[in-house]
């Protein structure tokens, strides 16, 4: 057990749900309510100044044993430049009410990471200043990185039909006196 | 009948002369584009156009044909009449300036006494084309380009006009042919040496006036896509292109006339009286191209700073010194 985990346990006893070492990397499970305090503590006092990565994982249908068995997890990879140490925080998020407090006030970089996570997994980040979709169109339905989201959806994005309609409309327009033939999609 | 012919003959000659000048100038413009592509190509370790005709010599003609046959698109919200008018203003203003430039001693299309003023007036008129096209296109990029052009015109027109004042003072005339003759009478034969500051200011502002790198802010390909002519296509785009190169040729011709001694040279070349004029013109055109291959682009505010804080004070000081010298020497 590394020094950091000891300090974390000492300071936030109940919030540290579990800890493990995976491939030589220290992992700590944190309760989501205590997350901002934990991250703030790590940032200010333990010198974890670099939030290397923030992402969500959907564990629906995951077979191997896990210390905490909620459907989602938000993973924070923190790196300390002074001690050259990587610490991974895993925050379990239940399926029914997927929210996590934001860490944007502490790490600016978390802003887009959280937006992306919200976009792709549907986890809300409470207190985030600008929680919009990032990679998907604004009117997209569903969250593609969820395990129950099909790789090839049955119905297509409604905006796509509109685009095709527009293309058809334009193809009927007379360009320079000549009628452009075709233009019907696939016709 | 004879009387009519007699009175019509000068006009006829004038028309023919104008046509000849225009055709020659157009050829020059066309082959400036070719030369630019070739020269820059070699500066950048590539070949440049070499597919159309021997050594790519027919490339400009192919380009014009291509532009002529392309579809002419007018954007929906555009102010149509202004949109059509803008490239013509630029081109006509550029081309008209040629008429007052003395190519050699005996050939000036319009030997007006205020030749320099005509050129200054027309060159500011040509920037109206730029501004109007920026306004008429109903596009944000074009609008920004037009804005930049108008600011640029104000600051560089002043510097350019002031830089020419020194020449006027020395020559005591605004007639361009007179200026050349006055130059050959001086010990240096050219004004570029006594008026070195004026020459420098003129060349810099001429580049700005023709919207060339490093002052190509109104078009700034990588910032405003193509700036004021982003919405133009086909031959209208071609007209703008033509106007830019006309501007280059005219500005170089003015520089040759006012600072480099016009048609005069170290010795007479028999049969080609305009030989030295062309040599100097080509040298300046090469300078334009060379600058384009070398320099990055200024930023808008830096350009303004350069104009107002360096070029205008410099040319004012130049006028003062020239005036004082003229008084006492």
């Amino acid at each position, binding site marked *: 057990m590394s020094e950091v985990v000891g300090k974390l346990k000492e300071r936030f006893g109940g919030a540290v749900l579990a800890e493990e070492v995976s491939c030589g990397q220290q992992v700590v499970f944190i309760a989501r309510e205590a997350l901002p305090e934990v991250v703030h503590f790590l940032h200010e006092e333990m010198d974890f100044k670099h939030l290397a990565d923030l992402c969500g994982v959907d564990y629906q249908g995951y077979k191997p044993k896990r210390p905490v068995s909620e459907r989602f997890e938000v993973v924070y990879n923190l790196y300390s430049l002074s001690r050259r140490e990587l610490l991974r925080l895993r925050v379990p998020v239940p399926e029914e009410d997927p929210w996590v407090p934001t860490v944007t006030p502490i790490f600016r970089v978390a802003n887009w990471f959280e937006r992306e996570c919200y976009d792709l997994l549907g986890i809300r980040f409470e207190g985030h200043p600008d929680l919009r979709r990032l990679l998907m169109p604004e009117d997209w339905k569903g969250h593609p990185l969820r395990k129950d989201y099909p790789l090839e959806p049955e119905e297509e994005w409604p905006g796509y039909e509109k685009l095709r309609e527009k293309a058809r409309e334009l193809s009927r327009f007379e360009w320079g006196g000549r009628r452009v033939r075709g233009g019907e999609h696939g016709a | 009948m004879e009387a009519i012919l007699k009175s019509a003959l000068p006009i006829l000659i004038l028309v023919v002369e104008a046509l000849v000048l225009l055709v020659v100038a157009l050829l020059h413009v066309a082959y400036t584009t070719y030369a630019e592509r070739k020269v820059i190509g070699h500066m950048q370790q590539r070949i440049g156009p070499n597919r159309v005709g021997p050594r790519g010599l027919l490339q400009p003609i192919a380009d014009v044909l291509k532009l002529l046959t392309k579809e002419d698109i007018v954007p929906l919200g555009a102010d149509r009449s202004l949109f059509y008018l803008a490239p013509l203003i630029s081109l006509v203003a550029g081309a008209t300036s040629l008429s007052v430039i003395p190519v050699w001693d005996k050939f000036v299309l319009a030997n007006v006494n205020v030749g320099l003023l005509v050129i200054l007036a027309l060159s500011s008129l040509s920037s109206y084309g730029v501004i109007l096209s920026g306004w008429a296109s109903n596009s944000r990029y074009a609008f920004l380009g037009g804005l930049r052009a108008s600011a640029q015109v104000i600051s560089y027109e002043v510097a350019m006009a002031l830089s020419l004042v020194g020449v006027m003072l020395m020559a005591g005339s605004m007639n361009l042919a007179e200026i050349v003759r006055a130059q050959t009478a001086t010990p240096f034969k050219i004004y570029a040496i006594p008026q070195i500051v004026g020459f420098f200011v003129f060349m810099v502002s001429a580049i700005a006036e023709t919207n060339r790198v490093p002052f190509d802010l109104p078009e*700034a390909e*990588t910032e405003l896509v193509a700036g004021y002519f982003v919405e133009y296509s086909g031959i209208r785009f071609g007209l703008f292109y033509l106007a830019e190169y006309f501007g280059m040729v005219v500005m170089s011709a003015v520089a040759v006339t006012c600072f480099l001694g016009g048609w005069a040279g170290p010795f007479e070349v028999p049969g080609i009286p305009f030989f030295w004029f062309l040599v100097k013109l080509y040298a300046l055109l090469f300078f334009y191209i060379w600058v384009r291959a070398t320099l990055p682009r200024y930023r808008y505010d*830096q350009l303004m700073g350069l104009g107002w804080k360096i070029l205008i004070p410099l040319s004012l000081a130049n006028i003062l010194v020239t005036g004082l010298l003229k008084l006492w020497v």
Partner: protein
Amino acid sequence: MAPKVEIVQRQFGHPEWEEPFVVNMGPQHPSTHGVLRLYLELDGESVVRCDPRIGYLHRGLEKLSENLTYTQAMVLTDRLDYISSAANNVGYCLAVEKLMGLEVPRRARLLRTIVCEMARISSHLLWLATHALDIGAMTVFLYCFRDREWLLDIYEKICGARLTVSYARVGGVRLDFTQEIVDELYRFTEEFPGRITDYETLIDINRIWLKRTKGIAVVPPEKALNMGLTGPSLRGSGIPYDVRKFKPYDAYDEVEFEVPVGKNGDTYDRYRVRMEELRQANRIIRQCLDKLPETEGEPVIAEGAPDLLMPEKKKVPEAAPHPKRGFLIKGAEVPVVPPGEVYVSIEAPKGELGYYIVSDGSGKPWRVRVRAPSFVHISAIPEMIKGHMVADIIAVIGTLDVVLGECDR
């Protein structure tokens, strides 16, 4: 508690609200390096608000990877930062190797280091070319492309592909170098430092270049780290964070190189850092080439490296074949890749490229997360652009060296 982030947003209905002059820069724009779209509110030439909109190149790489085997998914990483695909492969392979506990032969590690640094040179050359072109110096562009072409030719000799190389494999590399490639690389490393000096003479002392880059988009070190900048963009601010030094992978612990850092954290310093990195990359390639003969004849791929088509579960016969019928008796199932999770990052040319991979024991990754430097860097654009002009936007995009394939994934 930590301070709150201030979000500048002049809402409609606010007494000081007036209709802003909105320009959509991109997704089709010559200098947004792909399909980046910047929603800009301008006041004349100054930028009031900038909101990057991304996703135009979103191909769902992370989702796709979950449905491919580990080896198949590696090919997708080529398409992340398509300018330095070799480095992306290596990062991914390192992560999977760490999960599987594979030991990579030394020769393979040296070869990987070489292709990684080649990717760095090729990426930095493209960056220099486009950055200079954006600012208006068009000649540098073609000079850089001449040398990049040379590198791409070497890539072609190494593995047959120029852009999406897929050269690294889980457990090693695909092919060994031939003598011809080594010779060519020696020639390259011999000549390249002179070329760098050429580029520097083209723009380094150009006053317009200095005016356009000095003092533009200054990022103080703490802020740079907080905004998540990595790679040359961070080192330009003076923080010597380089994954190659902090967490050495492949052969980086046996070569000597320096990590250049800037002082002021402006565009010019980031430019200097990258130019210096070109020299260091050249040096690393040279050292690796010198070490190659020591490993002559070693295999280039580890024992037990996975095949292209990995099974869902590996079946291991427990007993001998069936005495009468001849087929194997069904044995126990062992995981192909042990369950677990790993975060491995490498120093890609653009910055820290991290892979977070979760395994559930089958032949397919459960979750592949790519921490793309370009994604983070684009999120920093609004902060860096504050108070600058339209012309500086392209300088900022250029200095961050973003690639949209990596940003959108």
